[in-house]
């Protein structure tokens, strides 16, 4: 098994309370399914939409967000999968895709090459 991170971009911000709840329930169901199949290494964390950017030798500090709302990473999860192909396949169930968001699937580099 190899490890991957899912970087989630975009989020659902509009919709009636009922739709918001339904959307949440889809996420809960998706994570539950991945977890039941043993793919969740670490469920990870949600990230605030704002923060600071520290840059260069000057250590200049600027305010986030650093990109357009839809491009901001809203959270990440660590998963285990056979290979990149399977990790990608599993990510296709992510409800973020229904609201115009994206999942970036990145293999984690191993120590023993």
């Amino acid at each position, binding site marked *: 098994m190899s490890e991957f991170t899912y970087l989630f971009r975009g989020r659902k911000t509009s919709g009636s309370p009922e739709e918001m709840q339904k959307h949440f329930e889809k996420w*809960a169901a998706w994570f539950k399914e991945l977890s039941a199949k043993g793919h969740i290494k670490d469920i990870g*964390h949600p990230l605030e939409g704002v923060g600071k950017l520290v840059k260069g030798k000057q250590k200049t500090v600027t305010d986030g967000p650093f990109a357009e709302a839809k491009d901001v990473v809203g959270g990440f999860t660590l998963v285990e999968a056979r290979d990149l192909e399977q990790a990608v396949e599993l990510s296709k169930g992510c409800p973020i895709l229904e609201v115009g968001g994206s999942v970036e699937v990145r293999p984690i580099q191993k120590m023993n090459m």
Partner: protein
Amino acid sequence: MELSDHLFRREAGRMVSTVTRIFGVHNLALAEDVVQDAFCRALEVWKFRGVPENPSAWLMTTAKNRAVDILRRERTARTFAPELGRLLESEWTLVPTVEEQFAASAIKDDQLRMMFSCCHPELSTEAQVTLILKTLCGFSVSEIAHALLASEDSIEKRLGRARKLFRLSGTFVEIPNASDIPKRLEPVYQAIYLLFNEGYHGSRSEPKVREDLCLEAIRLSLLLYEHPAGENPKTHALLALLCFHAARLPGRIDEEGDLIQLEMQDRSKWDRDLIAKGFHFLEKSSMGNELSEYHLEAGIASLHCLARSYEEIDWAKILELYDVLYRIRPSPIVALNRAVALGNARGPEEGLTELSKIPDRAKLKDYPFYPAAQGEFHFLAGRPDEAAKHFEGAMKLARSRSETNFFERKLKACRLGAAQINDR
């Protein structure tokens, strides 16, 4: 942990009411933004962390914090609730004042205030119901349009007018003094009643949506019932009525969503718990000397629920109640229902005579259940040919597929009956 059904929707009404109380009713849209924000935050955090132990409290606290942020940021740029104004200006009193508004009992008061505000006398009953669905029931514009079968445009217009009225008036409608309460509750009852009827009789949207409307109407009446200002015999009567009707929802519609006529309904599907609740409220409603239309309608509905079979229905007693109801509320629809009860109690010919004597029956000319009642009585009197003509008339007036199917089945029965007579 799983969320209970419609939790967000229910909490939306509580949060919007409370935040509006603090921001002032002229800032309703801003209050709605705060609530939307709380849901967004819940969505982001809960999907990683799971549902907190008390999701309602979590949402409330999130909305409260967000409200405090906005008050701090915008207190010089905006005016908030005038009656809280001074307290919100000072950092010393800001947080305690907001905390106080978010206490459980204050939230109940706020919802009641919101209900009174939505039922502003200058708004039409439709607009009142629209506003209630939006603010207290957490429905979106498209969900309201879907439920009330209006275009999204017209729902937006209704809300726009209401918001304008709120902006101009600026203050929340206060919970009135004891002596004014009955007068102020009247439009609230009407709006709840209309909301329920939209769900119960509204013949056009799908069963699930309609059931939701009925449940929302019951929830709102329970809100009244749980508040000292709203708890009185008339509220009990309304609740009894809604419980008796809602109890019969499961037996009223078949798998295809078609209406089943009373004779054919499977009474074992009726919700016994709700019927018991109905009787509980009916009993409470009799404590007092008021006899309202809700008392009478609840009484009629209780008699339907009591009958174990169609044959056991006590039509004579139902007729008595309709007699009184017609005196209180002489509408053509009540007269029609009364005539149906009379025909069932005394025979079809008398029913037909009564139907032909309804004053204002011109107002029923587009109402399919008037010719349908005539058809039914002709059929019972052994004149299926005559009955068929009336059911054809009813079919032309049908407002939904479900009504069309209903009359079509009756029409078939008439034609079958006529053929059997001709064979003899």
